[in-house]
């Protein structure tokens, strides 16, 4: 019998939602647990098997000095590292701090700023180590997570599309909310994966899955302003939420803030 692959699940700065997606696979969880050795997954088990690991799944962003050391050690003991979710792939919503003065933030929330140990920025895992695959989403799609785990354990490429949410709408015959309702939908520049959820619920996409491959946010922002009369502040809010530090979204928002200068 082949030895089971050792899988570890790590948490950095996050809401726990993406690793919870694994526990939300009610139908598949026990089969996954039979197929692999869940060697380290603190939210689910107190059993801890030391590395090396065949696959490390990493949730969360890097936002404290200790995490810089921990992520390097995760890389050192893992054959493959997969970053899951907007925090791990783009810094998460907590990367809004990257644009602000961190001391102001600390004193807004905490009475004794000197007790708080944090970095001035919240950054993606790939800013610190080599990452073998990034699974997008805030939160990730659990079916995509199972696909990624299965792909890495079988040494093949994950079948995850990097086209836009618009393609998903068309595939499902969902009526376009940008055209039919004049809403500032992020679909044209946002990566697919959610199944075009918001448009199916009569809502404009707000970019949870981050930029698609080769997006053109400047052009979309221009179109919103001229054709849709969308308020600039609304455009900045759209680009600056869960994937605010993803370069394509960040740069486009910055251009609008500074009046078009790159």
């Amino acid at each position, binding site marked *: 019998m082949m030895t089971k692959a050792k899988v570890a699940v790590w948490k950095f700065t996050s809401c726990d939602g*993406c690793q919870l997606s694994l526990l939300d696979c009610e139908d598949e969880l026990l089969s996954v647990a039979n197929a692999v050795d869940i060697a380290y997954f603190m939210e689910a088990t107190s059993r801890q098997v030391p590395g090396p690991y065949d696959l490390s799944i990493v949730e969360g962003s890097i936002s404290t000095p200790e995490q810089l050391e921990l992520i390097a050690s995760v890389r050192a003991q893992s054959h493959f590292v997969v970053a899951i979710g907007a925090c791990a792939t783009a810094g998460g919503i907590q990367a809004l701090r990257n644009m602000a003065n961190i001391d102001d933030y600390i004193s807004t929330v905490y009475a004794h700023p000197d007790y708080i140990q944090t970095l001035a920025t919240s950054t993606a895992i790939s800013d610190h180590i080599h990452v073998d695959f990034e699974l997008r989403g805030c939160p990730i799609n659990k079916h995509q997570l199972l696909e990624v785990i299965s792909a890495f354990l079988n040494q093949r490429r994950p079948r995850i599309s990097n086209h836009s949410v618009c393609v998903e709408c068309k595939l499902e015959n969902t009526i376009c909310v940008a055209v039919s309702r004049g809403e500032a939908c992020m679909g044209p520049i946002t990566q697919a994966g959610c199944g075009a959820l918001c448009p199916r619920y009569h809502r404009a996409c707000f970019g949870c899955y981050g930029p698609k491959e080769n997006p053109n946010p400047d052009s979309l922002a221009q179109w919103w302003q001229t054709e849709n009369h969308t308020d600039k502040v609304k455009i900045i809010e759209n680009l600056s939420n869960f994937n605010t530090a993803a370069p394509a979204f960040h740069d486009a928002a910055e251009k609008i803030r500074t009046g078009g200068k790159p």
Partner: protein
Amino acid sequence: MKDKSKTIRVDYLARVEGEGALYIRYDDKAVHEVQLKIFEPPRFFEAFLQGRDYSEAPDITARICGICPVAYQMSSVHAMENALGFEAEPGIQQLRRLLYCGEWIESHVLHIAMLHAPDFLKLHSAVDMAKLHPEIVQQALALKKTGNAIVNLLGGREIHPINVRIGGFYRLPKREELQSLRKSLDEALTLAIALTRWVATLKLPTFDRQQQPYLFVALHNEQEYPMNRGRLVSSAGLDITANEFEQHFTEHHVAHSNALHCLMNNDRPYFVGPMARFNLNFQQLAPCAKQLAKEVGVIPPYSNPFGSIIVRALEVVHAVATARELIDQYQAPEHPYTTKEAKAARGYAITEAPRGILYHRYDINDQGKIQEAKIVPPTSQNQKTIEDDLRLMLPTLMHLEEEDLRHRCEQAIRNYDPCISCATHFLQLSLDKIPCTTP
């Protein structure tokens, strides 16, 4: 990492949501210090909410917690509606209650079966449990799936739902969608009752807080077991509205925790969550849950925190029964949502998250931008009570081997289903047995 003598270390408390540590300093005679340390890195939500549009609050605050995003959405929409001076239509209120039932079911069952029950069986995880009690784990997963199906239908997805907005929902569920959900709920009720009967057979450690009784705090209203509506009451006679919360409860920043400690009247620790709701709202429980509570012998006043697993299971029964009733009585509202123009105002709300009361307060300006936000999550409110439990429990446990002692401490923490991502996770448990020295 070298172990020092007379110190037990665990680098991380497992089976809780988040990163926390416990530090206990004791000797043969007394417990000198108990600190529940929360190292979960701060994310500064209250800071970056400033300047954001009021309409973004439900989507942004949901990201505080992947386990209970609906709670954040419910407290934020109610607080914003309070600020703008309106209430959502009755049909919307029914759907919100149904959505909350879904989150209570999935969150409670996750904790009961996957995080807490392994403690009582001395196992590492639900996966290990599945080898010994396969039918229990499979039934729990099926029940959890039903909870998630409710959130999925009304919210669009289980984690960070997208369908909730101020004034209502983006899209109302179709009658046939609700009917297909309704079909799964009869089976779910059977599963929930079976799960409760099973957890009631677990051997509970006994722990008596009669010397220092708990101060329970929960919402209360005569018509229904509290979720979105009610006055804030306590076992000591408190009876206030959400806008009076900050006059009675204050947050304190202590050096050992990234989560603020919230205390009543500046110094009184209190207890929120299923145990508090159950003790303060027993009459409002669904009849089948009330009957089951009597059958398993758990009725108010009930204060063994290790029995919280049974109370949580009873709340699952209640939530499934309530979900069934809500679908049967549902009258679709005329509009999926109502809107009101933004104005400069302050709004407050408290709702019952699975782990206890969740307070939100917002100040918005006439452009609808958030000027100030204050959020008090359940776990920060329970931190001090958890520390007190450990402090009072330890002297009676000194006969235990170190390994068993540490395990009991972890189990006592899990009684509270602490959600450390909410409170701000890394549980490093060190029991430090050294001669008492003055710091």
